[in-house]
């Protein structure tokens, strides 16, 4: 399992290949990457703040739970912080399992939990100034289907 929190960009193609090479027994690899939306051209930049130390622990615990629940061969989370431009990659997850349904569900679980349980905060910069992004009720509701207390 691998957790990386970094300000530098990452190369999705390289990461997926390296992850795939590291899970020889798996029959399925699912990957997801999240990008900075340009919001119809109005967004100038996004800044992501995090809580060093707690961030890694929270991601680790979410990852442990996903591996356990879906018997994943392995999982990877990369999440960036700092200032990002529209179109840039913010984060990625990859999961590997014997069968695709476990890999898909494990990846969805990782995404749902890291959105509202890992200590990251997004701030958007537009022509009108800067504003912290509000958490969405729908993100909180997305956790309920997993019936977990993490």
């Amino acid at each position: 399992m691998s957790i990386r929190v970094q300000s530098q960009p990452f190369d999705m193609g390289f990461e997926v290949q390296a992850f795939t090479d590291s899970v020889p027994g798996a029959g399925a690899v699912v990957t997801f990457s999240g990008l900075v939306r340009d919001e119809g051209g109005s967004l100038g930049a996004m800044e992501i703040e995090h809580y060093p130390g707690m961030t890694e622990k929270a991601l680790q615990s979410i990852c442990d739970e996903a591996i356990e629940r879906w018997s994943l061969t392995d999982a990877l989370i990369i999440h960036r912080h700092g200032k990002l431009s529209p179109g840039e990659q913010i984060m990625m997850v990859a999961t590997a399992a014997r069968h695709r349904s476990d890999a898909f569900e494990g990846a969805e679980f990782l995404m749902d939990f890291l959105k509202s349980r890992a200590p990251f905060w997004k701030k958007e910069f537009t022509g009108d100034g800067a504003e912290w992004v509000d958490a969405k009720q729908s993100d909180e509701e997305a956790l309920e289907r997993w019936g977990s207390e993490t």
Partner: protein
Amino acid sequence: MIDVRYFAWLRERIGERSEQIETNATTVADLIEELRTRSEAHALAFSDMASVRVALDQELTDMDAPLGNTREVAFFPPMTGG
């Protein structure tokens, strides 16, 4: 002595990343009552508690949690990762 840390708009409203606090508070809620009296900025930051989350020694918890031997308390808004 307890290390209190602030993130995102709580950090901006209070104007500090962290502060060392001498406290006799036994729960998070008691500590917040004390912090509110430190300045108008603190009072404002803790005026809408529906928008504040807390972690004790880097573990998410709730406002009723006992402080016990906690060394680091962090306050921040609901998280927006992903």
